[in-house]
C-alpha cells in the first residue's frame, strides 16, 4: 500500500493518544510535561503532512516552526515552576500538591 496522507495522520493520532495517556496516568510533574511534548509533536506532524499533501504552499511548515518555539518557551517556564514546587513542598507528585500555599 502506497504511503499517503492517512499513514502520517494515523502515526500522529497514535502519538497524540500516548501523550494524553501519559498526562492522565503519570504522577510526576515532569512526566506530564513529556506527555505535553508528545502531543505537540503529534500536532506538528499533522501540520507538516497537510502542508505537504495539500496544495497550500509551505505555510503549514511555518506553523510547525511556531509550535516548536512555543514548546521551548513552555518547557522553560514549566520547569521553573516545577523547581519552585520542589523547593516549597520537597516533592513533585501532582496528586499530592493540592494547596496553593504552605
Amino acid at each position, binding site marked *: *500500500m502506497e*504511503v*499517503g*496522507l492517512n*499513514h502520517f*495522520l*494515523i*502515526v500522529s*493520532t*497514535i*502519538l*497524540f*493518544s*500516548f*501523550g*494524553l*495517556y*501519559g498526562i*492522565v*496516568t*503519570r*504522577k*510526576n*510533574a*515532569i*512526566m506530564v*510535561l*513529556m506527555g505535553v*511534548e*508528545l502531543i505537540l*509533536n503529534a500536532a*506538528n*506532524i499533522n501540520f*507538516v503532512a497537510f*502542508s*505537504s*499533501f*495539500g*496544495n497550500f504552499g*509551505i*505555510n503549514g*511548515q*511555518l506553523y*510547525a*516552526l511556531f509550535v*516548536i*518555539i*512555543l*514548546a*521551548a518557551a513552555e*518547557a*522553560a*517556564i514549566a*520547569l*521553573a515552576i*516545577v*523547581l*519552585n514546587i*520542589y523547593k516549597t513542598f520537597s516533592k513533585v507528585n501532582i*496528586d499530592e500538591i493540592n494547596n496553593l500555599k504552605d
Partner: protein
Amino acid sequence: MGIYDIIFYLFAAITIVSAAIVVNTKNIIHSAFSLLLTFFGVSGLYALLGADFLAIVQIMVYVGGILILLLFGVMLTNKITNVDIKTGVLNVIPAILGLGIFGAVLIFIVTSTNWHVEKLVIPKTTTSMLGNLLLTDYVLVFELLAILLLIALIGAASIARRDKE
C-alpha cells in the same frame, strides 16, 4: 513497496514504539531517553514529508534544548542518591479504556474522511522559502514570538531564582 515506504514504516515504528516506552516505563530517566528516540523518529517523518529545515530544527531544539532541560528537571527534583527515579501512576484502567476508544474513533475519522490530496511534491530546499515567508507575510508573528521568547526567558529565570535570605 518502494524504498520510501520502507523508510516511512521504519521511522513510524521508531516513533510509536519509543512513545509507548515513554508513557509506560516507571523510570523517569528511561522515559527521557526514549523521548530522544521519539524526537528522532518525528524528525525523520518531517524529512520524508520534504520539510528538511524543520527536521533539523526538531533535532536542534527538541533534543538539544527541551530534552536537556527535562533531564535537568529530573535531576534537580529528585534526591541524587536515589538510584532509581520512579514515578507513580494513577487511573491506569480508565485511561486505557477511554483513550483506546478515543484513539480508535480518531483513527476511524481520519481513515474514513475523503481528504483532498495532491501529489506529494518534495521541494529542493525549504529554508529560503521559509525565510521569505517569515519576513513578509508572517513578520508580525515573527516579532511577537521574539518578544515572547524574551519574556519566557526573563520569567523562567526570575521564577527559578533562589531567594536571598
